[in-house]
């Protein structure tokens, strides 16, 4: 079957959700879920191309866990950052919308990257155009007029996530 691997990924995601919702592993729940999810996967067989390039091996799994750890740390940092900014009476902000470039091709990887950027300190994705992400940054360090600065901004905002995502997808 075409795209069998990608359909399997969609099946896996939906199955995990089904089991978590039901909160049980009784045989009738599993059978009913299996039938329903198979129908859903067949119905949306065309839209699985978003998982293009995903890897299903132990190394990718290990990197997924590493990604979660990195993400959680960034999220807690972001929490402290937001608190300190809001409660500071001087309101230290210097906002601006900057452009960074991403090397990722897979749609799902880009979605995860964008969501991660939105949930981490001081950055917020406003738009994606082809390979460029436009990011509202609460404290712009330097205006990107030359290539060097551009790379620096990209590294600072997306570098750590992108490197790991490159290892899971592609």
């Amino acid at each position: 079957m075409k795209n069998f691997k990608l359909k399997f990924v969609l099946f896996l995601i939906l199955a995990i959700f089904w089991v978590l919702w039901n909160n049980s592993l009784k045989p009738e729940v599993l059978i009913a879920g299996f039938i329903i999810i198979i129908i859903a996967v067949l119905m949306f067989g065309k839209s699985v191309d978003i998982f293009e390039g995903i890897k299903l091996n132990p190394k990718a799994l290990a990197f997924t866990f590493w990604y979660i750890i990195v993400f959680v740390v960034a999220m807690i940092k972001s929490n402290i950052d937001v608190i300190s900014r809001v409660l500071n009476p001087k309101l230290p902000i210097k906002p601006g919308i900057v452009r960074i470039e991403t090397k990722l091709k897979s749609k799902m990887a880009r979605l995860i990257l964008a969501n991660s950027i939105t949930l981490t300190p001081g950055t917020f994705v406003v738009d994606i155009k082809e390979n460029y992400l436009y990011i509202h940054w609460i404290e712009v360090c330097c205006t990107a007029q030359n290539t060097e600065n551009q790379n620096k901004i990209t590294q600072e905002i997306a570098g750590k996530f992108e490197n790991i995502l490159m290892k899971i997808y592609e």
Partner: protein
Amino acid sequence: MDILQIIGASMVLIGSLVLLIASIGLHRMPDAYNRIQVGTKASTMSVVFVMIGFIFILPSWFGKFFTIMLFVMLTNPISSNVLMRASHKKGEPLSSKTVIDNLKEDEEKEELNKNNENGTF
């Protein structure tokens, strides 16, 4: 078990305090872009903290709490992104503190290019 419950309850308290700070931030920030930064991050994080705290209190309800957490982490950034993209397109004003707006520059450039092409034909 009691200690776990108290840890869980404190995490819920932290989550609610984060929400409170988000609500203050909504009033302190100067423009919509900064507001949604605070709003999205802090509200998502508050839900994450609250749900993790509840998982400590009632481990047998793990499935539901975990799903809600994943769900919010997936959907909240998407909806804020759609909202801000639309607002930027329609010219939501940026605050006077703003240093740079690459998106607008690029859009104007694109518009200019399009007009030039149309002119040559």
